[in-house]
């Protein structure tokens, strides 16, 4: 009886087999994704105790590749990443061109805005699709758009808006804005000013940080006087590299919270994010990189994963077709942020909630409750369609 049953089961199983999809039966297709990173010299910083990792972005791309492969093998897809990290931008441009000539369709780029724009121009005749995982510059999203570039890293305006929504929800309306000396600090401050206007914050005082003393020794003496201005509810710091901002906390004239690039920070990603299934991504990342995953890692990871998801949802393996597939409103991507992520079809920006974190905890996620939008609440963050001159989906794929 039991033998009979076994035989029957075996028979049933063998009948099942012909209609199966298994990777072994199908031809394996190789998908290569290039990764380019410009290694900039590190400026001297006052708060240099915990330096930023050199491989921000690169490690995210690698984890994205292994995530893609884990699913790709069921579809006969194998992913590889080709990497170049260099201090020489010309070498990066040359490599990008060579990879394009070899047939690579996708590049994840971790470059400053100017270099990104140059590379995008140089590759505009190749059909290669670029993912910006390194530059938060708003100009790339509002005026200086490239039709062959999508952005997985949030822009400064998105970060500023996310912060402003939270501040206004908390009734912290009077802001003191302190800006560092670097050009990117000025751009961050611009995003904060724009957000103030959009959401009803009032910048009661603005200060530029120009001190050159060593704050590790003198913050207690310098910062209180420096922050003795018209009374504010909150201090917003624009210091992207972390030169002086860390020393503003707990040293302000009025005992007020510090937010912006230090203190409570709006980010694309942080180790403190563990909701929405993120705990698993964090541990995959840490196993591989031996450090915490940051926003640039997340942007590079999301770029690679987006390609993987689109191919498994039926996109063709070509840069221009991929671009159109991703810009289509039907494309959806689960990126551990609690809601589906899509791309803005006017400027190629990936819509995403922004996390507000302090160094060891997730405090909130924007958009905040009550900030409504006619089509998508996520578009309350950053430059919305009417505010951007870009219409990349109308320019068609090159």
């Amino acid at each position, binding site marked *: 009886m*039991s033998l009979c049953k076994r035989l029957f*089961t*075996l028979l*049933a*199983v063998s009948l*099942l*087999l012909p*209609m*199966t*999809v*298994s990777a072994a039966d199908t031809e394996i297709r190789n998908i290569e994704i290039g990764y380019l990173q410009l290694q900039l010299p590190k400026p001297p910083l006052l708060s240099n105790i915990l330096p930023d990792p050199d491989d921000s972005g690169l490690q995210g791309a690698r984890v994205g590749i292994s*995530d893609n492969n*884990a*699913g790709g093998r*069921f*579809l006969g897809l194998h992913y590889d990443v080709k990497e170049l990290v260099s201090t020489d931008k010309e070498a990066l441009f040359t490599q990008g061109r060579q990879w394009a000539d070899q047939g690579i369709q996708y590049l994840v780029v971790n470059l400053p805005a100017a270099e990104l724009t140059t590379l995008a121009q140089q590759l505009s005749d190749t059909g290669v699709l670029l993912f910006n995982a390194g530059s938060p510059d708003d100009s790339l999203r509002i005026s200086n758009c490239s039709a062959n570039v999508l952005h997985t890293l949030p822009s400064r305006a998105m970060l500023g808006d996310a912060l402003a929504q939270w501040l206004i929800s908390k009734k912290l309306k009077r802001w003191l804005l302190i800006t560092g000396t670097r050009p990117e600090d000025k751009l961050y401050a611009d995003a904060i000013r724009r957000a103030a206007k959009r959401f009803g914050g009032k910048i009661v005082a603005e200060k530029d940080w120009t001190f050159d003393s060593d704050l590790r020794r003198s913050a207690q003496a310098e910062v209180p006087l420096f922050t003795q201005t018209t009374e504010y509810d909150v201090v917003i710091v624009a210091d992207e590299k972390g030169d002086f901002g860390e020393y503003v906390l707990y040293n302000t004239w009025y005992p007020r919270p510090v937010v912006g690039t230090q203190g409570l920070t709006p980010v694309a990603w942080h180790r403190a994010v563990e909701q929405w*299934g993120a705990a*698993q991504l964090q*541990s*995959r990342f840490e196993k591989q990189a031996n450090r915490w995953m940051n926003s640039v890692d997340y942007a590079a990871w999301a770029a690679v994963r987006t390609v993987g*998801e689109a191919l*498994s*949802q039926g996109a063709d393996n070509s840069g221009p077709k991929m671009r159109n597939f991703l810009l289509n409103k039907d494309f*959806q*991507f*689960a990126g551990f942020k*609690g*809601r*589906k992520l899509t791309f803005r079809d006017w400027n190629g920006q990936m819509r995403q909630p922004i996390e507000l974190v302090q160094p060891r905890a997730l405090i909130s996620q924007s958009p905040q409750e009550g900030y409504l939008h006619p089509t998508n*609440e996520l578009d309350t963050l950053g430059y919305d369609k009417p505010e951007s001159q870009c219409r990349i989906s109308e320019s068609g794929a090159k």
Partner: protein
Amino acid sequence: MKHLTMRRLALSLLMLPAMSAGTAMADVAYVSNEKDNSISVIDLKTLEVVETIEVGQRPRGITLSKDQTQLYVCASDDDTVQVVDLATKKVIENLPSGEDPEQFALHPDGKHLYIANEEDAIVTVVDVDSRSVTAQIEVGVEPEGMTVSPDGKLAVNTSETTSMLHWIDTEQKHLVHNTKVDQRPRHVVFSHDGKELWASSEIGGTVAIIDVATKEITHKINFEIRGIHPDKVQPVGVELSQDGKLAFVALGPANHIAVVDAKTYKVIDYLLVGRRVWHMAFSPDEKLLLTTNGISGDVSVIDVEKRKVVKSIKVGRYPWGLAVKAD
């Protein structure tokens, strides 16, 4: 083979006294509290928590043994499946489970647990009698939902990041098919007749109905709740009534349960429950449906016939899974 059967017989004879002791109690529900490392025991007559059982770290999926004398608990952060003896309310054993077990399903034979190992992209099959791993099957990234068909021939796993359903032949212990579904599939369940498979996609916002014979999606259910952004409607748990007429879908941060006509796949009603509702279980007579609400830290009790939430019961922090034991 024969030896094993003898052993099982001996085992079930041994269990008899424990079972009769159990009959003195009412129906009870067990709730795993993910951030409290405990199981809350709810008396289904009084609808009150009567006991709390200490278990391992980050308990998530829970299920009863076939004879209902033991509770299996995925202690995710301890990388083990714990066996709780329900008579003594103590953890009596740690089963090998593979890394980070999250959800599992007991094969109708009562002997094999199919465990989704979330961090390892693997499904581990454990023989609960011999306490050994009989097979490990590679699946997609972040395996989560797990179920076994009523006839025991197929096990299905969902991989959240790969967004696929992986069909496993339970005899051969290998993959026979993969079905691509919407983003982040969380939960799968077979219809009681074994002909359909229901699969929820948390980020996709849909529930897919799959024909088991062809393994193709035949229907997709969408949900729409007034005043709630569609992106926040995130289906997770799915429970099907024994008579095949109704389906209940837990909608996560939308804080609602959808009541679905299981024949026409139309949504009939939405019931407001606690915050971030993920999993559910029926009382043995199916008059009540219980839900775990992670953020509000409670269990909502739904009167199935009246389609009304009749009570919410405070449990531990981040209640996750549910298992119900009949009187």
